């Protein structure tokens, strides 16, 4: 068993209807709820807007990733799985995928 980080990148979907928003949330609730119930969910959090990018000792600080950018990570799920394949199988069921989000699966180096 190892830990894997699932990084969720959103598509934006500003035009989504109230009914669809509710569907997505309900599907996430079920997906995350099952992971939690089986003990596989270690942590999850949404990343807030803003922040900063700090580079090198020259103290270059740029404003952090903006949420309008499609490639920005919106949040993460830290899960436990038997293998990368198992982690990917879990990621494949992430409800966000249906609505344009992508999930990056990274093994935590043990």
């Amino acid at each position: 068993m190892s830990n894997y980080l699932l990084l969720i990148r959103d598509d934006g979907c500003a035009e989504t209807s109230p009914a669809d928003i509710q569907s997505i949330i309900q599907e996430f609730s079920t997906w995350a709820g099952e992971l939690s119930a089986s003990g596989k969910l270690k942590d999850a959090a949404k990343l807030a807007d803003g922040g900063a990018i700090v580079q090198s000792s020259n103290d270059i600080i740029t404003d952090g990733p903006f949420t309008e950018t499609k490639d920005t990570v919106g949040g993460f799920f830290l899960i436990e799985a038997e293998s990368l394949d198992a982690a990917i199988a879990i990621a494949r069921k992430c409800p966000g995928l249906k609505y344009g989000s992508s999930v990056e699966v990274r093994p935590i180096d043990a």
Partner: protein
Amino acid sequence: MTEAKETHRLVETLFRRRSANIVATLVSVFGPANLQLAEDVTQETLLKALRLWPYRGIPENPSAWLFATARNIAIDHLRRDISFRAKNSELRYELENRLNISSVSENELETHNSDMLRMMFVCAHPAISKNAQAPLILKTVCAFSVTEIARAFLTNNDVIAQRLSRARKSLRDTNPDFKLTRGQRSERLPAVLGALYLLFSEGYSASGADESTRAELCSEAMRLIDTLLDSQSTNTENNGEAGETAALGALCNLQASRLATRIDEHGALIPLEEQDRSQWNRELQAQGFQLLKRSMQSKTLSVYHLQAGIAATHATASSFAEINWKQIVAYYNDLIVLQDSPVFVLNRAVALSFVEGIDAALSELTRLADDPKMKSFYLFHATIADLKRRRKHYAPAKTSYETARTLTNNPAEKRFLMRRIAELS
């Protein structure tokens, strides 16, 4: 978040309903001219929930969370927008009062209902194009997406988006009050009833949605009609208006009572003669008949009265063989006098086929053959096909069924038509 969270189940229509509540409250506070602002704040609120709840879980009191978040976002907008500077503290006070945790309690429900009703009537403002009024109600009060509205009106998203945009501009230009006079409400009632019937029809026939959505749309429509009727019933001067609303309510309840028997287990439409009448919902039927009684307080019969009459005639027949088609033809005759719609003529022809024979019905339909709306209406061709099938003219029937099949995207309708085609092959 490391401890296991209970999976909450959101009430089926929660987001639709709260979206409508928040829009109505914000329009009440900021005025109809600021409808765009109200919609933006509402959408921002829902998107915030969409981005946060998947990670944190659904909150204990989702409605309270939504209202509080909407309040904060609205206050933020207030602070940043100079046009509100003069009324800043007054508006802020309103927002804090109307969008807080107690707003979700049962006693506040009445305020929300009145605001929703007022919102419906705002959307029927005479300065707004007739073809934009129902879409606007569907968007703001029924929380339809532009896509759902486009489907209901058999058009595309751009057309609807443009109509909504112009409607908002009309409200900006005329800057009307949120509260209306009795006279204004009377004037606008037809538009409001029309939109509610469209909402119900979309649920009943569901051009694209799934089973649960269909039932949800129907019950939303019936709930809003109920709310409207309640508000009208306290005012005895409006007997005729309450009667018309009751007629619409009767129509919807009677039609909804048949919903369970419309579609079979393969997802195909079940024709009336094959529907299992024992499965018709008795409670909805009873409500329908009660509302029909109430509708009799009107002095004149509206299209809703007549259509409810037709639905009642079907509901009282204990079998297909016992349907009083003569009565139904009579109702259609009156309907066509009120509103010369080809759809009514089409439906009348079906009823006529059982009273004067199929040939009489078919010759009625040749009158409609040149109407461009009918040529592209799947039901027109399906009706001709059905009449020819009953007449045992199988080859022309099959051709008409094929035409009908190409004209509909509804899976239940398609499956039914394919079944008929297969039977004739």
